């Protein structure tokens, strides 16, 4: 009775290590939502309420201190809201892409507004994807799957079940 492996089984994945996602959003409600979406998709989550805090967590803040140290706590994906007071998601994306240490971390921008110029601007700046809010479980599972494929090509099979 051979059934295709479900994307939620992780026994075959490298070291059973969950991807670490940094989610940035000024809305507490949305942070809680995205945290649950990611946790239910077997990701480790850290949230930040603004771009400045996100940069500090990544070690790109003014104090130069890196909060996440060692490979174990490395950030594998950043999901940021576009519309935030002060530093927008676009500003944050730019700063990350300008950083020699962080530029290779995929950044996904989310927004409640479908503005083609905004989408293009983010994609041109190197955003991996631009997704409309509210984020769905299917969006997150797809992102999770892409992360697994990038880190270990042999695990691409895990994504075929869904």
């Amino acid at each position, binding site marked *: 009775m051979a059934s295709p492996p479900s994307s939620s089984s992780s026994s075959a994945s490298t070291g059973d290590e969950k991807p670490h996602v940094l989610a940035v959003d000024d809305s507490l*409600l*949305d942070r*809680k*939502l995205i945290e*649950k979406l990611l946790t*239910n998709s077997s990701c480790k989550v850290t949230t930040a309420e603004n771009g400045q805090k996100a940069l500090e967590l990544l070690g790109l803040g003014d104090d130069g201190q890196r909060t996440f140290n060692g490979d174990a706590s490395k950030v594998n994906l950043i999901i940021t809201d576009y519309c935030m007071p002060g530093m927008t998601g676009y500003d944050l994306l730019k700063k990350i892409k300008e950083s020699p240490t962080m530029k290779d971390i995929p950044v996904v921008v989310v927004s*409640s507004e479908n503005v083609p110029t905004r989408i293009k601007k983010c994609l041109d700046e190197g955003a991996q994807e631009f997704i409309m809010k*509210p984020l769905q479980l299917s969006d997150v599972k797809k992102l999770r799957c892409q992360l697994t494929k990038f880190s270990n090509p042999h695990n691409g099979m895990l994504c075929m079940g869904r």
Partner: protein
Amino acid sequence: MDVMSQLRRQLLEHTAFLRKEGFLDDQFEQLQKLQDENSPDFVVEVVSIFFEDSEKLLNNMAKALEQKIVDFKQVDAHVHQFKGSSASIGAMRVKNVCIEFRNYCEAQNVEECFRCMQKLQYEYVLLKNQLEYLFRVEQQIRAAGG
């Protein structure tokens, strides 16, 4: 029919009613699907944040519209936030009023903005009552061992 079945039916019928009347859309169902044994109160927690946020935003909107010279950008910023949070929990009717409201902010029409704000307050209170009823029924189910 035993109490448990009655309660469960009440819950199903009421949720279906809220969907049918447009109070809630698919996004609310997404929230319910996210709830699990790790976070058994997830929906209530998220909706509580929504209630808190909403009341703050409605207050802020009212204050902004009462100013002698209305800062429409400020009003719009509050409505935009409200639109976002209502979309996040699936509060469709509230969200739709926000969309209308934003148009009037852009047009800088004070009267229509006031009308929208009142409509928003009305829809919000309606939704709040409906959701609180829903949560009471769920609580009764849990209390009865469900």
